[in-house]
């Protein structure tokens, strides 16, 4: 088994602002993200030999045709991938494998979601018929928050936190996300919030309140990728990034029904991290990673993901949160972008957007100077779909190209 490490490079990226775009449809979002990426890589749609497109709930779209029709790609292979909210990581992985196999030389990976035509906040009834009609209805098909909240309750009780202590701990994650998002021009939620605001907000699914939940929105992200040896053709100055690892772990799916599942760990994330660290040769992620973009659809999701990826010891997130270890000047900045929480979460677009954050940070193009990280070498993008006990997790590790 060969490692994917450094075999492929990302030479251009684009990302729309994330938000509620009443005047844009899925095609507008695709075109906007792709245009930025094409311009960034100095290529055109005609140069793309194959594409991977990911979306999950956008029912105005179907197959890869949504991408080829939006961009008028002319009869090239387009693969539609879908891993629920973890779709983005899979688009990049598909593209990377297409390049590593040398089947294609220049490809596009694009994630997109148009969620705000639904008529309500949250994810809602996205997949009627995909779940058991009666048993599946019990856990409320679209009720991601109700499912993640199960983990919050269990984490509190496992580690001896009262609901008040637990909610306060999680509140700090949301405050950090909004602070980071407030300085990110493309982020959806750019208001700063206080712990008091978080604690006093309406409950969505106890123990999680409004500010524990990310913003469901519209958006798209795109990456132009080639093999590393070709990267200088597109970026002669060498400011491209290479894929150090791209891992997916699909859980056996019945975690929530298995008495051995404890609800305080994302087992799929743990497995994907194992794969990714092995591929990238990472021994100590907390020390070796310059930053981590973590799938924080809910405050508790960030906390448990960071623990599950071994960046923090299990059960010790509270110490990190209190010491500010995950803040911009902490040991490892987590979600410097604002995360799904503040940057927004158009399901299929988030995984690519996480890589985009590293790409811009690495290039020193974080837009707002106060949020520019220094000495950015390697970053992790964590993306997952499903719900506790039933996840598919994706981890993409990207970093500076190997020295020639």
């Amino acid at each position: 088994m060969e490692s994917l490490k450094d075999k492929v490079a990302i030479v251009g990226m684009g990302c729309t602002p994330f938000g509620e775009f009443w005047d844009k449809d899925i095609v507008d979002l695709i075109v906007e993200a792709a245009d930025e990426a094409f311009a960034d890589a100095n290529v055109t749609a005609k140069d793309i030999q194959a594409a991977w497109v990911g979306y999950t709930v956008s029912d105005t779209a179907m197959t890869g045709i949504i991408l080829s029709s939006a961009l008028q790609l002319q009869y090239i292979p387009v693969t539609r991938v879908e891993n629920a909210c973890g779709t983005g990581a899979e688009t990049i992985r598909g593209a990377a494998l297409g390049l590593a196999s040398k089947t294609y030389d220049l490809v596009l990976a694009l994630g997109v979601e148009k969620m705000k035509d639904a008529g309500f906040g949250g994810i809602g009834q996205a997949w009627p018929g995909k779940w058991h009609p009666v048993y599946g209805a019990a856990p409320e098909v679209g009720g991601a928050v109700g499912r993640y909240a199960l983990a919050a309750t269990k984490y509190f009780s496992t580690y001896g936190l009262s609901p008040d202590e637990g909610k306060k701990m999680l509140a700090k994650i949301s405050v950090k996300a909004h602070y980071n998002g407030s300085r990110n021009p493309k982020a959806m939620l750019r208001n700063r919030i206080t712990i008091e605001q978080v604690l006093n907000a309406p409950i969505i699914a106890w123990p999680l309140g409004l500010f524990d939940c990310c913003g469901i929105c519209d958006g798209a992200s795109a990456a132009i990728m080639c093999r590393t040896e070709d990267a200088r053709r597109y970026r002669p100055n060498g400011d491209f990034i290479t894929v150090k690892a791209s891992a997916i772990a699909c859980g056996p799916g019945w975690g929530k029904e298995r008495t051995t599942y404890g609800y305080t760990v994302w087992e799929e994330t743990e497995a994907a991290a194992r794969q990714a660290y092995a591929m990238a040769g990472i021994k100590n992620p907390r020390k070796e990673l310059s930053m981590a973009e973590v799938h924080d659809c809910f405050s508790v999701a960030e906390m448990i993901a960071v623990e599950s990826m071994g960046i923090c010891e299990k059960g010790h997130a509270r110490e990190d949160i209190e010491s500010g270890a995950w803040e911009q000047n902490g040991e490892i900045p987590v979600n410097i972008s604002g995360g799904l929480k503040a940057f927004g979460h158009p399901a299929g677009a988030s995984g690519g957007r996480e890589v985009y954050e590293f790409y811009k940070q690495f290039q020193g193009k974080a837009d707002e100077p106060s949020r520019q990280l220094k000495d950015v070498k390697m970053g992790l993008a964590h993306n997952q779909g499903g719900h506790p006990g039933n996840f598919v997790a994706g981890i993409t590790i990207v970093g500076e190209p190997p020295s020639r």
Partner: protein
Amino acid sequence: MLGIVSYGAYIPIYRLNREAIAAMWSKAVAKGEKAVANADEDTVTMGVEAVLDCLRDMDRRTVDGLYFATDSPPYVEKQSASIIRAAADLRPDILTFDVAHSLRGAGSALKVALDSVKAGSARRVMVVASERRVPAPNSDFELQFGDGSAAFLIGEGDVAASLEGSHHVSSEFVDVWRKPHDTYMQTWEDRFIRDEGYMKIVPEAVKGLLSKLHLTPKDITKAAFYGPDARTHASIGAAMGLDPKTQIQASLLDSVGNTGTALAPMILVSALEEAKPGDRILFATYGDGADAFLFKVTDHIEKVRDRRGIKRHLASKMMLPNYGKYVEIRELMEWESARRGARRSSLPVIWRERQMIFGLYGQKCRSCGNIQYPRQRICIYCQAKDNFDPIRLSDKTGKVFTFSMDQRAQEIVLPKVFTVVNLDEGGRFYSVMTDRDTTKVAVGMSVEMTFRIQMGPSEALPLEGSGLYNYFWRVRPIRC
């Protein structure tokens, strides 16, 4: 000896104080309270509760028939008894039918059950009566009507109460009626109905019964009979020549309300709970005539004491805080239309998985011994393939492993309490908690299973399930 082998009853946990109804409509203060079925309950689910109470510690496979009486079935066309049979996990090779269209349905079903056993066509028959009638807001019925159910296992041999005799009267008298498209009951002037109906018909049937048996009213220890309200109930007793202080079993009208077809059966359960061997109990149902039965309590009554019945269910309650909450769970209003898409169910799936859905069968792996739900081909613990024994989980209890309370779920009673339960005998059940006090939901609390409507057919509320009542098991804090 032919008679009642066992009995059971069910009263929903929610009660509405009649003062709350009176206050809503600026009426004179009304006394007592009434039982109100939760939004996920109907006559089928309450029927299942009574049947399972009746069959406590008994072999379910010995039941040869299930006759279900109600005037408020979930379906106008589609049997309810068959659903109750499936949920109670009774044998499928038995006779089931519904008796509807009359308040006396329970008495009629009981007569047929006794005759079936007597004729030898069945050894044991379950008779179930359940009612959840929706009264018109601001009507007298609204103050009176309550919800509940009762069940009796009829058989021969070791009966707890043996049949002395019965007498039946048919009458074309019209008291309350409801046509297929009527939302609410209609009736006539109460004085006419009382004087010509209740006061004459029940006493006539009882008189006929006693004269057949060469007995007098004095021979009756306790009488359990229908009455629409407490005052009329007392008057009917007096008309039968019974001593109101000693011979009349308390009517439940002030504490549960008028549960229609199920009222007299519930009063009978209450009488059996207190009965001593040798007692003679009169049971009379009313409607389009009357059915009167006399039972003599035997020593075996002591073997069927451990029932939740009326007494324990009555003591276990949660008050609805106001009339608005009652309106909500009774779906008495047209609500804002749902913006989220309707949930769909699928008949082929429900049929394919009927053992899993109605009987709540999980499976136990023969290789590793782990219990799992729902059904799998490959063990989720040891990955052994197709190597399972079915195991019924509906009678298991468990402890809450974790929970969340969703305020925005598509559910009438919010928050929807998602609950992960570790079953005491192994296995985990992922479910919704009903009949709960949200301030008391906690990790580690003990829960039991209850058969409920998972998705209703209502379009006004976001519960659409392909136009069907989608029944499934939920959990609730151990009731009583």
